[in-house]
């Protein structure tokens, strides 16, 4: 090969009989004229050198070492790992702005106390003290609080007396009791829809303490009364009226749909009763309680009544369970 690496005419002189070793050298020299092999050696040495130089630098960096020009020593530093919700907040450390926005990691910090400030448009400034330790990462996860903006009035001319939140399986809705009727705010809290006309006194509306929903009807109650609203499909809200179905004997504290949602299980004073939703005059006693402070919970899925009541003779409060499931099942079979 010539100096450019191109093959050239090779002359092999018979009279130049060399030893095997010398001929090998000659052959290797021929190969070496190919500049690639020379470059290989150069690159090999170069990458070995890079490895030797780079490894300690990267290791020192990884362990957090930093050369301090003032003390002329290697000092162990720490880092802060900042995450914010929402992201892209400006970061200030001891008043000095850091280049990156959140989420970010600030490295090579001398151990000690710092003041971290996060700032983002439309959010309140978040400031906190932070402690940086050597060879450690201090993790910060911050939720920024938005400033009040974009307050939207949902509907003019409404006097909302009460509102309740009903939790559903796939979301929730808000029921509003207003002077003009009962409204519902949809799942995105954007649609305001009238569902029933309210023919109650305003004073009665203000005494409403609870609400329960079941499929196409819901009940609400005060300590004295229970009302029922039945919603029909495509029914005009103006034709949907509120019907009072129960007058309390003592005070109504809890109401649940139960017994295949055909009854209301009502805690009235120291009695638990079952009230037929379709025929409110039909009332059955369920359980008598010993204490006026007793509480109840009814699980309509398992038709189980859970009660906290005073038990005698211990004179302590205990939990009681009444399972209606079998009874309900038997009733349906018969």
């Amino acid at each position, binding site marked *: 090969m010539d100096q450019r690496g191109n*093959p050239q*005419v090779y002359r*092999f002189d018979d009279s130049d009989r060399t030893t095997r070793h010398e001929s090998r050298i000659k052959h290797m020299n021929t190969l070496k004229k190919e500049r690639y092999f020379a*470059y290989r050696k150069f690159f090999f040495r170069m990458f070995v050198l890079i*490895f030797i130089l780079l*490894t300690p630098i*990267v290791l020192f960096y990884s362990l*957090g070492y930093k050369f301090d020009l003032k003390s002329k020593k290697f000092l162990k530093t720490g880092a802060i790992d900042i995450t914010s919700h929402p992201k892209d907040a400006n970061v200030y450390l001891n008043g000095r702005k850091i280049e990156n926005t959140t989420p970010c990691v600030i490295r090579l910090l001398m151990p000690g106390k710092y003041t971290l400030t996060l700032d983002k448009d439309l959010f309140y400034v978040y400031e906190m003290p932070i402690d940086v330790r050597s060879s450690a990462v201090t993790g910060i996860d911050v939720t920024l609080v938005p400033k009040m903006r974009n307050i939207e009035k949902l509907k003019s001319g409404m006097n909302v007396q009460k509102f309740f939140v009903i939790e559903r399986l796939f979301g929730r809705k808000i029921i509003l009791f207003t002077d003009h009727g009962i409204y519902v705010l949809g799942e995105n809290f954007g649609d305001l829809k009238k569902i029933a006309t309210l023919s109650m006194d305003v004073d009665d509306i203000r005494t409403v303490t609870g609400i329960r929903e079941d499929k196409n009807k819901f009940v609400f109650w005060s300590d004295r009364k229970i009302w029922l609203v039945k919603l029909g499909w495509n029914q005009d809200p103006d034709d949907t009226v509120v019907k009072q179905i129960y007058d309390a004997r003592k005070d109504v504290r809890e109401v649940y749909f139960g017994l295949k949602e055909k009854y209301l299980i009502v805690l009235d004073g120291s009695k638990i009763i079952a009230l037929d939703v379709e025929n409110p005059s039909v009332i059955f006693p369920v359980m008598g309680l010993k204490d006026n402070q007793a509480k109840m919970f009814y699980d309509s899925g398992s038709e189980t009544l859970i009660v906290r009541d005073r038990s005698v003779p211990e004179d302590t409060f205990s939990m009681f369970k009444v399972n209606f499931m079998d009874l309900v099942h038997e009733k349906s079979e018969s």
Partner: protein
Amino acid sequence: MKKANLKRILEIIPGVMSWSIILSSILLFKFNPVMAAIALIVYLIYWSCRLFYMSTLLFMAHHRMLSKKSVDWYKLCEASESDKSLAQIVHVVLYTIYKEPESILIESLNAVKTGNYPKENIIVVLAGEERGEGTREKLENLKTKFQGDFKDILLSIHPSGIQGEIPCKGANATYAAKRVKTYLEQKTIDFGNVIISCFDADTCPDRNYFSCLTYHFLTNPNRYRTGYQPLPIYSNNIFTAPAFARVIEMGSTFWQLIESMKANAFVTFASYGMSFKTLVDVDYWPVNLVSDDSLIYWKCFVKFNGDYTTYSLEVPVFMDIAVGKNILDTILVQYKQKRRWAWGVETFVFLGMHLWGNRSIPLSLKVKKVFQILDNHINWATWAILISFITPLLLCWGKWVRQDSLVFLNLTYINSTLVNSFTLILLLCIFIGKEFLPPRPPKVSRFIYVSFILQWFLTPLVSAFLGSIPALDAQTRLMIQKPLVFDPTPKQRLTEGPEEKVPGNLRRKK
């Protein structure tokens, strides 16, 4: 030390080292996470430097190949003045055949026939296995088909069950070579003028292969101490092979390109040429070992006390990507092939046994060669597993368990920086890979070139599953003395219909 004990120790070393590296990386994280993170950082930097170095070699080797593309090697042969004349040189092309279909062999022989080298100086040897079905009939058909196209066509049927042999390519090739020796003696052809090229059945040599090989043989004063290795390019069926198979085979080609830059460390692989005289001197290929291609190099190295090298020819040979009947079958075929290649770790045992007590080879050269084999095979078995699986797992583990550790945070950062930088290497692979693509058959859509680019992003998975894991499998088998049975790679092409008889890697359909 007794030879049996030495052999056992040598068999255990590669597997132990590979498993130690993998297991210690996991155990170290449990007992000393900081130290493990430091070790991982060092390993990542080492591999980054190594990969960039290898990329540099790849680029240079590729440039070397390209710069020699238009060289008229036959003219150079004619013009060179050597102690031997061009007319004296005889080429023996030995094809080892087992179950390959006749169509593949026809293509290979067509490639030999259409090369720009006088066919009257080429003897083709078709070496079949007796245990293969319809071998004799297949070979006879081929001989009839190509009769008169070459100086001669010799047939060899290797009988099965010869004592001391295992069913392997080396045994078949040795049997055929001995027949060739008899033939040459009968024709009074000097072995020193004969160059034997040992090819797989699917090997289609480049048009200039014989001219280039002859030129280097003529002009090399150390011609009998040199093997001649062309660049294996797996492109015969590249347009029909699955993407992951293309990646791993192209990777093999790139590996050969990289190794070709290391003049003193280059070892013969797959299809190659050498002097027939040298072959006879070293008593042919090993008949009881699987890795005949690399072992013939080491046999020569030991026989000639270290005075043996491999020269990288500037021309390629074209071979098939190993495929199966479907994707899953192809994965299995590829896995077995790579495991067989990785079984080349047995050369470590061979070399160790033969270097032990050999006082003719300098100690420094012994250490260098032993280190060379170990380095290659251990890295082969570990690097992809460590980088593709263990590193991400340990980083996730560190993130959850050691959230407050600075070294783990920085390790994540370093790892992601290095992985991003590997994109440059991927780009290089895409650029170089396109050079080895044959002309696209008309039936194949142009969109296949998109898959040729995207396929390289499979590299981390492919390197592990079809690179490191088979290598680890082979080393483990060697360690526990569960020998690998030679499992020939099935050669089939997923194209149908009559094909023109075109040379090399050009495929067109009628």
